[in-house]
């Protein structure tokens, strides 16, 4: 079995497990939407200002709640599962790629649900070529999916992993957040978004190389 076929099987299995547990659908999604409601209440900002910061709030919620998605229960392997993976000669790089693919799919879904919520309650000015925003969102999902999966492997089985993982994942996702936020601002003012897109692609490439080459090292 080649690497990509193994990765596809892992992704499909992860998504099925997630579908059964419903962690994202019944916990993370409502929690993210609730956060979008709480921010205006806590800040008491006027409607005009909320409209201006709408997309910014959206990206922050995607980043912070995206961490819950990439570090979800169904993406963690127990010791017996790890042993089983070894016995079936599963390539650790395929596990990394498969988990990343599953996380990316879930993150795209999360963004797709949060976008209309943000549009309905914050009413931000949508740029004319909003299709490019979809591309930015998808690239952000890939970058976050890979970063989160790598962090999950790094902290797996360590003391205080539940507290440590979000700290690392949110920090490492910072360049991706800046790129997404910049792209939105630039699209709103009719400027080119080549630089933010290039930054997102760079993050994806670097994370892929590090994840694939170090996956076997992080297997223990």
């Amino acid at each position: 079995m080649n690497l990509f076929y193994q990765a596809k099987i892992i992704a499909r299995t992860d998504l099925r497990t997630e579908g059964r547990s419903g962690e994202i659908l019944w916990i993370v999604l409502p929690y993210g939407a609730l956060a979008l409601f709480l921010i205006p209440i806590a800040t008491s900002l006027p409607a005009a200002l909320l409209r201006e910061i709408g997309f910014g709030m959206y990206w922050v919620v995607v980043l912070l709640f995206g961490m819950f998605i990439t570090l979800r229960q169904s993406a963690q392997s127990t010791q017996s599962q790890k042993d089983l993976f070894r016995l079936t000669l599963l390539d650790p790089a395929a596990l990394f790629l498969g988990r990343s693919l599953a996380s990316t799919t879930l993150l795209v879904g999360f963004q797709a649900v949060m976008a209309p919520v943000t549009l309905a309650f914050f009413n931000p000015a949508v740029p004319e070529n909003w299709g490019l925003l979809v591309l930015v969102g998808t690239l952000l999902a890939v970058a976050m999916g890979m970063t989160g999966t790598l962090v999950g492997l790094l902290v797996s089985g360590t003391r205080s992993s539940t507290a440590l993982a979000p700290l690392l994942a949110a920090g490492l996702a910072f360049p991706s957040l800046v790129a997404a936020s910049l792209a939105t601002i630039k699209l709103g003012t009719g400027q080119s978004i080549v630089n933010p897109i290039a930054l997102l692609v760079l993050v994806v490439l670097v994370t892929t190389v590090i994840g694939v080459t170090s996956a076997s090292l992080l297997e223990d």
Partner: protein
Amino acid sequence: MKTQRTLSWTAGVAMLAGLYFAATAPPDVIQGEFVRIFYVHVSTAWVAFAAFGVTLVGSLLWLITKRPVADRTAAAAAEIGVFFTALAILTGMIWGEPVWGTPWNWGDARLVSTAVMFFVYVGYLALRRSIPDLTSRANRSAVLGTMAFLMVPAVYFSVNLWRTLHQGPTIRPDGVTMDPEMLRAFLFNLAAFSILFAAMLVSRVRLQFAIEDAESASPGRAATLSQPDLEML
């Protein structure tokens, strides 16, 4: 041991000389006496970047050679880097108060990204502390140490991508826009802080090995030593 002592003394003398040059350099036309913090602020930021560079090199060397000294050097450099990043942020805030009119500005890309870099490397140190097994700790830290270095160019080039209040580089390929006396003070402080970094690094790596030796010689020793302190509490 001799290298460590020589480096420590050299660092001490160089720091005193750097302080002298910083205090006697002419004041800035616009910023006046406040410019003196520049000599410390830029030097601490430089050491932080250099330290994280050493963490990257140490991490890569561990991944290739598996020599313990590479991992311990990476860890020691990260500790020093975190300390100097905190200093750079603090001195930047002290400088920002009179010059920008505020110690913290969310509109400054370098300030905000430096703070995030600080937290990423705090996470690196926290990861090390949470893994008792030496080999597993070294493996995972090396991967994170490599990935975390992405933050360094992100901080450096953030001013080109994002909005900023930070001034551009003073030393450029097309020339230096600084008074020669100020340049001398600046370069001297840069060198002094670099020697200090080298001294701290050597010292911390040696200490790390000494702690490991003590722990392997007597695993329960640390707990026994701290018992009276615990009882006092």
